[in-house]
């Protein structure tokens, strides 16, 4: 055995012992984790999908996902609450341009109320009608001016 191989083997043995010692402190590494109820139905799971999204989901007794916390393949994090028909009704997350927002949606998943910090520095609370038209806003501009407005819904 060469001196180099001997040196590497000794280093490997020491590392294996050290890692084993720390692993024994109750660290589990896995590709996915599922929590099941007394009927063996999955009620919560953590895993990475083939789409590269890491998700923590909680399901109701019927197996429908009702809460999802995820980081997308693009790195964007978000939390969503779903109704019984699988529509996302409450969402907290970062947009593709990293704008943090809270959105409340109706049963058709049309956003009806949204609070958002825009990338250009504006911040606002916006209310939309069922067609998705902006109808009311409470806002603050990037230069520090506050605003309150209502709209008739005729804007394109």
């Amino acid at each position, binding site marked *: 055995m060469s001196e180099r191989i001997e040196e590497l083997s000794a280093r490997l043995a020491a590392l294996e012992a050290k890692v084993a010692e720390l692993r024994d402190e109750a*660290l589990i590494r896995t590709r996915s984790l599922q929590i099941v109820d007394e009927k063996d139905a999955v009620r919560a799971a953590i895993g990475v999908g083939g789409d*590269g999204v890491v998700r923590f989901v909680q399901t109701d007794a019927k197996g429908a996902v009702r809460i999802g916390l995820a980081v997308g393949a693009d*790195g964007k994090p978000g939390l969503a609450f779903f109704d019984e028909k699988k529509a996302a009704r409450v969402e*907290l997350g970062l947009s593709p341009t990293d704008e943090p927002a809270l959105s409340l949606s109706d049963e058709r998943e049309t956003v009806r109320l949204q609070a958002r910090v825009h990338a250009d520095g504006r911040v606002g609370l916006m209310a939309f009608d069922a067609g998705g038209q902006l109808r009311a806003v409470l806002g603050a501009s990037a230069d*520090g001016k506050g605003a309150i407005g209502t709209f008739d819904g005729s804007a394109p």
Partner: protein
Amino acid sequence: MTEAQLEERIAALEAELARLVEARAAGRSAVACEVVDGGGTTRAMLATGHDGTVSLNLLDGSGKLRAALGLATSGPTLSLFDPQGIRRLDLHVGGDDVPRLLLFDDAGGKRLDAAVDAAGTASLGLLDPGGAAKAVMLATGAGRGVVGASRE
């Protein structure tokens, strides 16, 4: 094992050792579960700390923390982070039992603050980059509503 195989195995173990040491230093080692993707990158960590805290952290593909759901000694918290590691959204019930949603700009400045305080006042405040309230909406515990915006 060949020299190359030994070096490869050592590199993998050194990386794992670094993760384990970091987890222990962060107090996550009481009980911890790491969820890894197909490439072996840690994407989620579920852990309890020695101080009784519980946390679930989700990481992006490059290993950066992007979402943290936790039960700290001060209360439950959800935080979302941008790619630069800046906290951009925070939802929590603090030690004062006040539920609060905070949104931050890309410099980490608080820009939106929504809460229900101990006196029963529900409030939404929109702040400028310096932290001054520029638009507010309130409903007091006594039933009065207020909406206001600053022109300055």
